[in-house]
């Protein structure tokens, strides 16, 4: 356990020096701030609920950027250490492979979450100053769900990294997975449902099994407090399960992705070679 914490502290600090992470985290902070400012400005003119507008904007932004950060940072992390020979030296120390994997994953997760909180913090502060703190719990829900999404995609990234021989190959796979989860998944489900005439329960299951969709749906439920804005799948699911149970299910989906991908990555790492 001591070695896990030593490595977590080291890798957490190392990620702060990583240029790629710096660019992504900076972009996230800047975009959340810009999006919040723009949405608040629009609200002032239109006179509609400014919180909902800002929160919805942030959810859509997070659904794009958080998986990108999680997948790419996670995917390159072990692969770049393997490529540069750092892993070879590290695994020759009195630590076993699961310890190295766990320590590195924890360290990176800690820094990524801290980066997310910093990014949301700017927008949250602006929101609190402009519209008050009445809706703060809903905002915190979105932040918490984003953290879960970050953990799930980081775990998938680490699972990719565990077996990738080079940084570039790991990055390629991460971008492919990101594209699949963020863009292609909904289109794929739609097309499959139409062609195969899938029952609605299967379409629902396919929809919520995607961690990005689960995050988006859970966040919308948290912001609006109802399923009216949750889309056809969300509306149907909320009616069948109830909003509370659906939120719990969606969070469970995110947790399962995290645990399953982490265990898969650890297995790949332990069974693989450092070369």
């Amino acid at each position, binding site marked *: 356990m001591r*070695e896990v914490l*030593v*490595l977590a502290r*080291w890798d957490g600090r*190392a990620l702060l*020096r990583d240029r790629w992470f710096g660019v992504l985290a900076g972009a996230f902070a800047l975009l959340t701030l810009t999006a919040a400012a723009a949405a608040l400005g629009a609200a002032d003119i239109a006179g509609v609920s400014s919180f909902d507008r800002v929160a919805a904007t942030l959810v859509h932004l997070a659904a794009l950027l958080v998986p990108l950060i999680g997948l790419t940072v996670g995917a390159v992390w072990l692969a770049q*250490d393997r490529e*540069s*020979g*750092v*892993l*070879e*030296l*590290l*695994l*020759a*120390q*009195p*630590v*076993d*492979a699961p*310890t190295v994997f766990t320590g590195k994953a924890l360290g990176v997760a800690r820094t990524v979450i801290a980066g997310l909180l910093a990014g949301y913090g700017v927008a949250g502060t602006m929101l609190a100053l402009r519209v008050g703190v009445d809706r703060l719990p809903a905002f915190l829900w979105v932040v918490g769900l984003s953290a879960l999404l970050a953990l799930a995609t980081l775990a998938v990234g680490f699972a990719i990294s565990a077996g990738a021989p080079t940084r570039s190959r790991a990055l390629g796979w991460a971008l492919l997975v990101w594209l699949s989860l963020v863009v292609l998944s909904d289109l794929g489900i739609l097309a499959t449902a139409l062609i195969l005439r899938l029952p609605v329960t299967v379409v629902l299951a396919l929809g919520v099994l995607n961690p990005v969709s689960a995050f988006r749906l859970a966040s919308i439920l948290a912001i609006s407090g109802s399923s009216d804005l949750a889309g056809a799948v969300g509306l149907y699911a909320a009616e069948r399960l109830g909003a509370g149970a659906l939120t719990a299910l969606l969070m469970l989906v995110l947790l399962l992705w995290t645990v399953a991908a982490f265990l898969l990555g650890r297995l790949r790492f332990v*069974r*693989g*070679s*450092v*070369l």
Partner: protein
Amino acid sequence: MIALTEVTVRLGGRRVLDRVTLTVAPGERVALIGPNGAGKTTLLRAAVGLVPFEGRVTIDGRDLRQAPAAARALVGYVPQVPGLPAHASAADVVALFQELRGVPPDPLTVLQEVGLEGAAARPIGTLSGGMVRRLALALARLGDPPCLLLDEPTSHLDREGEELVRRWLADARTEGRTVVLATHHLDGLETLVDRVALLEEGRVVAQTDVGALRHRRAFDLLVTPPLPTDLPAGVLPLPSANGALRLRVPRDVLGETVRLLGDRVVSVREVPVEMLLREADR
């Protein structure tokens, strides 16, 4: 003691090590030699559990598969190309490895041992190849491990760095440290090891103790006929072609033989250690 028993390593569908059995006694220093791709680096990696292997590896009786961390605690390893995090400082890296080995962090003392105290705060990415190599050597000795595995320990080192390695190898004997080093050429290291093993195509094809090897050191001479009848004892004629003659001359009678043959000597070539090992093993 390091013991590899029937160790096989397959990488990318290729058998890189083929049922290698090698035992290195406590305090013994063994040099692994062989051509590129012979399996020297893979053997060292298998000995520290860095590649999946079949067979058994034990370090001082601790099974590498069953207790990898405990076994690795007894080994200091220097890879052929030491990979260290480019953005971290030398002192930070030493402190990290000290923490992983359960040693109280004291990076400056460690860096002083290898003459890098002036580079303690510098990012590794700004250090020269030789400095990184020295740092890796320093890391290998953290926690005073009883076994050292060194892959090409003198490559990229300047004269001072090479001297450092030689001193450590010499000290290893008095300290009772077990050493396995891999190298393309012995380059004078034969005086600092006890045994030499030759690897070819993933197998240990020959091994002998350095004393026997030193005794067999010889030169091949290409000479023009006729041969004098009073050649020194130990000189052997070898099969030859193109009308020239070849002689195998033990090192201790080389001067005498060359003087005797005079200008009939066309060329003198030291017999490669690999060839001597193979011949000694027959």
